[in-house]
């Protein structure tokens, strides 16, 4: 029969009927249902298996605290494992499958563990599986891993998208129940900008699940009206289905808005990760009910009493036909009342307290009595009482009392404090996040009447404190509903087990055994038994566990303590935290001015930080990367090549004191750099290690332009700002990054001048005499377009770098290529650039790796001893000056054919002497950069070896065990090609 347990009433839309499946069976439910309520409506009580013992389990709760009803929802790439049925809003076509069982849900083979449970107590695995040693990885661990775990993921890329957002408000109210709504009404009226967020898709909190009269109307109706009113106010933002999962520093709140229904229909983000900046927040998150630990308290059909009320009242579902109640507080009686009001048969009320009946209920009443056991594995059929009676029942509603949802008050290290009257923890006073207030049940104010007043007052006070207007608004009126409780943690379960943590299968016995073994601190118990570490984050088990430890160790609860609550309040999808940052959007992308042009040339691009640069330009017929790169090198050295070097950092420095400033940040002197000249500069960190290098040109008396490496552009700029603002604030220096203002191209090769002369406007004389090596100047090109020209060379050829405003970058590259046609100009990429710089022995990234000093790099000669500069003093430390430090030199294979038939270079190989062996002890250095030199016809390498500068000519071994190669190499000058640099000056 369809929805056999459905009764009258409820906040569901019976006009909208949905089909869904559970383990393949097609079932019906209504809009407004959760998956859990729809399953219960269809009398599906057995919904899952526990983690360790694979016990049959039913729905325990009606909220985000659910430990049992977690399942795989959706199929294929959309499958969501471990999803709580109790908070999953039903939609048409929902597919749910139970998880963590082998074989059908009813006949899980892994349930054998349940029968072995005597041996599988807490921590048993620390004591065995040690022999034989090699069996751990090969046998024990795979078996354990396969039987552990819960749901399965699809292993397919998540097809949904996620987004992020930023919202500001004066007051964030977390929880839209009676308390939160009361706070919101008054805060909104005061003029404050308010965000009201609630984890449920229907705002109203327990007003939707209880019988209350508020301001003389039904509680849920009142909630609906007030929410509607708030929705019309401009200064209010309502965020339903939004969980505030964490409080971060200075009023930053993390919240996840669930939009999966919208996502399904319109291809929108499944969730939005909101960063809410709130001046104040009021936590109105209510409370969560906890169970009582008695023998076999985990059977399907045993639910928390508040959840029973929720299913009956909100979802119009009868949880059973013969319901019994077990409680230690007044609320169990209200459950009985709501059930009988709805015509559901209540057979018994069992109250552990010896009290007068709280409400008149037509059922067997047992006070001062406990439930000591239950019957039937797949679904409860009877309970056994401490007075010896057995009662036939198909649903047991348990209430062990309510724990305030104070988790967020602890996110900054605060500890809750014990309240013996409420038999639970309430928010503590120390280390509560600044700006956070708590009201209502979350604050231990259990009576709804008091909670509404507290919400109202808190809203009012917080608004006033922020300077908003006083509001003359009365709190809503409702009847008092007192809450009386006497703690009952556990009932002696004899030989049977009594569950504390349902999902992780932690029983009272496990806790007692852990205590016996000296695990007495709550944290030790938690870690040893896994109590509270399941997907429900201990929401129903943590406080219960503390109560049981205290009882067992005869300690006060205060002395026992509580575990720390950490974000997130409820689990958050990794995708939601990542937002849009995945795939190609993991990082922003930077394109150079020649990108589209290069794309037309079929360039191969390479990621360099965020940039895409052209790596090489394959020509027709070139199938192997080296074909292209070798050609680019040879052609550049023979005639002329062009490379886009826009990505190099460029910083304009202006001011009266720039030269003095440069003197302080470069090892070499800059004070006397003439206008129209550029100079190589090496920058150190304060610890004396090389940080970056580049050139700086003086364009006019007070105007310099510096280049940095691509990789360090941002760091160098930041470092220079530090040096200026923090160390030498009175220097007149103004820095502006012009990296992106100019498209800059290296034009290199013997014909580079001839090529440039075709585009540089004729009034600028760039002959060798007029514009010598290391010249710099402002010129115009292509009929009046301003440009900067630098005669510098990384390739070792006659070369220039020419910069034009980026808007002309694309066009200028095309012009250069056209002008160069007569010289067979070629574009070259970063690979050829790298080959040529290694042929010339220029240090780059692999050499400037932060572990090398100016001396190590063979640039000790540059270091000025006559001035202070960053890195000077610490660079003089004795270990850095030792002659046996590893120094940069060149390496040539003794056998020129070495590595030619391999697909790798010498880079990364370590260096040992010919009679050395590949051990740490004999290790003398390593090869940092290595390429095949088409100019020389063999591999070459730059690297560091002990005392290298004095060992030129010596033969050593370059050993690469990782790639199984060993090559004899000769230590040489790093300047492999044109060591005198004659080609630069022509």
């Amino acid at each position, binding site marked *: 029969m369809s929805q056999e347990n459905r009764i009258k009433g409820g906040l569901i839309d019976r006009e909208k009927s949905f089909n869904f499946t559970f383990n393949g069976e097609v079932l019906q439910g209504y809009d407004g249902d959760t998956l859990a309520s729809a399953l219960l409506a269809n009398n599906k009580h057995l919904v899952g298996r526990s983690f360790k013992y694979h016990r049959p389990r039913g729905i325990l709760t009606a909220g985000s605290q659910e430990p049992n009803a977690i399942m795989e929802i959706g199929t294929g790439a959309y499958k969501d494992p471990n999803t709580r049925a109790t908070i999953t809003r039903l939609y048409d076509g929902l597919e749910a499958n139970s998880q963590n069982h082998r074989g059908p849900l009813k006949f899980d083979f892994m349930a054998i563990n349940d029968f072995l449970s005597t041996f599988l107590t807490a921590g048993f695995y620390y004591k065995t599986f040690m022999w034989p040693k090699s069996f751990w990885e090969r046998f024990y661990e795979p078996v354990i891993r396969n039987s552990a775990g819960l749901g399965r993921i699809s292993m397919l890329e998540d097809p949904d998208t996620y987004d992020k957002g930023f919202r500001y408000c004066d007051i964030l109210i977390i929880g839209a129940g009676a308390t939160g709504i009361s706070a919101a009404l008054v805060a909104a009226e005061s003029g404050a900008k308010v965000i009201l967020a609630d984890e449920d898709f229907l705002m109203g909190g327990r007003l939707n699940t209880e019988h209350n009269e508020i301001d003389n109307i039904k509680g849920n109706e009142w909630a609906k009206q007030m929410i509607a009113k708030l929705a019309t106010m401009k200064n209010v933002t309502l965020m339903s289905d939004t969980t505030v999962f964490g409080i*971060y*520093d*200075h*009023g*930053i709140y993390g919240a996840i808005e669930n939009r999966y229904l919208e996502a399904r229909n319109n291809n929108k983000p499944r969730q939005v990760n909101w*960063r809410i*900046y709130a001046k104040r927040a009021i936590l109105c998150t209510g409370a969560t009910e906890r169970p009582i630990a008695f023998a076999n308290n985990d059977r399907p059909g045993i639910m928390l009493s508040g959840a029973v009320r929720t299913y009956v009242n909100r979802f119009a579902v009868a949880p059973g036909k013969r319901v019994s109640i077990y409680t230690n507080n007044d609320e169990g009686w209200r459950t009985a009342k709501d059930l009988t009001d709805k015509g559901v048969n209540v057979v018994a009320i069992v109250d552990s307290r010896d009290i007068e009946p709280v409400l008149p209920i037509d059922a067997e009443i047992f006070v001062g009595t406990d439930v000591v056991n239950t019957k039937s594995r797949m679904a409860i059929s009877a309970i056994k009482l401490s007075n010896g009676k057995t009662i036939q029942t198909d649903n047991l509603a348990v209430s062990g009392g309510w724990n305030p949802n104070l988790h967020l008050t602890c996110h*900054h290290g605060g500890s809750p404090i014990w309240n013996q009257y409420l038999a639970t923890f309430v928010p503590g006073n120390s*280390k509560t996040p*600044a700006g956070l207030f708590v009201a209502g049940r979350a604050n231990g104010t259990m009576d709804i009447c008091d909670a509404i007043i507290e919400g109202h007052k808190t809203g009012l006070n917080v608004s006033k404190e922020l300077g908003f207007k006083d509001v003359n608004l009365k709190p809503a009126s409702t009847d008092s509903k007192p809450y009386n409780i006497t703690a009952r943690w556990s009932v002696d379960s004899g030989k049977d087990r009594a569950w504390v943590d349902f999902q992780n299968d932690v029983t009272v016995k496990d806790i007692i055994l852990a205590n016996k073994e000296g695990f007495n601190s709550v944290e030790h118990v938690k870690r040893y038994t896994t109590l509270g570490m399941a997907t429900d984050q201990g929401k129903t088990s943590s406080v219960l566990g503390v109560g049981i430890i205290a009882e067992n160790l005869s300690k006060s609860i205060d002395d026992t303590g509580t575990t720390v609550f950490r974000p997130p309040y409820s689990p958050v999808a990794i995708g939601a935290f990542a937002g849009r940052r995945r795939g190609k959007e993991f990082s922003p992308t930077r394109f150079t001015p020649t990108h589209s042009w290069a794309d037309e040339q079929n360039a191969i691009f390479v990621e360099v930080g965020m940039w895409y640069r052209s790596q090489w330009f394959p020509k027709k017929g070139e199938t192997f990367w080296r074909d292209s790169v070798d050609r680019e090198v040879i052609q550049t050295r023979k005639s002329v090549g062009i490379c886009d070097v826009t990505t190099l950092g460029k910083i304009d420095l202006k001011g009266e*004191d720039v030269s*003095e400033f440069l003197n302080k940040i470069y090892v070499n002197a800059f004070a006397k750099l003439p206008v129209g000249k550029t100079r190589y500069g090496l920058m150190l960190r*304060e*610890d004396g290690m090389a940080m970056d290098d580049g050139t700086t040109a003086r364009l006019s008396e007070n105007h310099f332009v510096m280049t940095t490496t691509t990789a360090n552009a*941002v760091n160098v700029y*930041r470092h220079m*700002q*530090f040096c200026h*603002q*923090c*160390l*030498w*604030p*009175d*220097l007149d220096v103004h820095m502006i990054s012009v990296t992106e203002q100019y498209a800059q191209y290296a034009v290199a090769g013997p014909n580079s001048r001839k090529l440039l002369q075709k585009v540089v406007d004729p009034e600028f004389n760039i002959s060798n005499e007029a514009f010598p090596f290391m010249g710099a100047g402002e010129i115009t090109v292509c009929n009046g377009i301003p440009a900067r020209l630098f005669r510098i060379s990384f390739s070792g050829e006659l070369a220039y770098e020419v910069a034009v405003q980026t808007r002309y970058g694309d066009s200028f590259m095309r012009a250069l290529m056209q002008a160069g046609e007569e010289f067979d100009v070629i574009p070259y990429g970063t690979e050829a650039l790298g080959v040529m710089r290694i042929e010339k022995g220029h240090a780059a990234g692999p050499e400037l790796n932060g572990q090398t000093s100016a001396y190590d790099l063979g640039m000790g000669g540059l270091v000025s001893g006559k001035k*202070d500069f960053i890195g*000077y*003093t*610490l660079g*003089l*430390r004795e270990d850095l000056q030792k002659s046996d430090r590893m120094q940069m030199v060149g390496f040539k294979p003794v056998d020129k054919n070495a590595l030619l038939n391999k697909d790798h270079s010498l880079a990364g190989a370590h260096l040992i002497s010919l009679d050395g062996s590949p051990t740490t002890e004999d290790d003398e250095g390593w090869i940092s950069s290595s390429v095949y030199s088409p100019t020389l016809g063999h591999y070459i390498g730059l690297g560091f070896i002990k005392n290298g500068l004095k060992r030129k000519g010596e033969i050593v071994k370059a050993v690469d065990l990782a790639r199984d190669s060993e090559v004899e190499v000769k230590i040489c000058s790093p300047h492999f090609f044109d060591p005198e640099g004659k080609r630069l000056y022509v």
Partner: protein
Amino acid sequence: MIINHPLLGPRDSEEFVYLGSAELINRPDWQNETAPEDFHNYQYIRENIAGENRELWYHEQGDQSWLVVTRNTLTHEISKVELATEVAKKMGRTK
């Protein structure tokens, strides 16, 4: 975190880059006799205070100013934010 920039008001710390102790402003004199020891302490030794710490943050994605932020390392509470330039000048740094 939110840093209340003295010129721009509250800004998310994601706009900033952290460096370390504000003592890094106090760069020693290279010509002091004790320069090697001074620079060693300056560069490597830290008070590492559990409590109010004066530290340098750079507003990289903002106005590019260096700030001296007084922040409690136990609670993260920020009690003061100053422009590093002004702090540096007060500490006697000039050219």
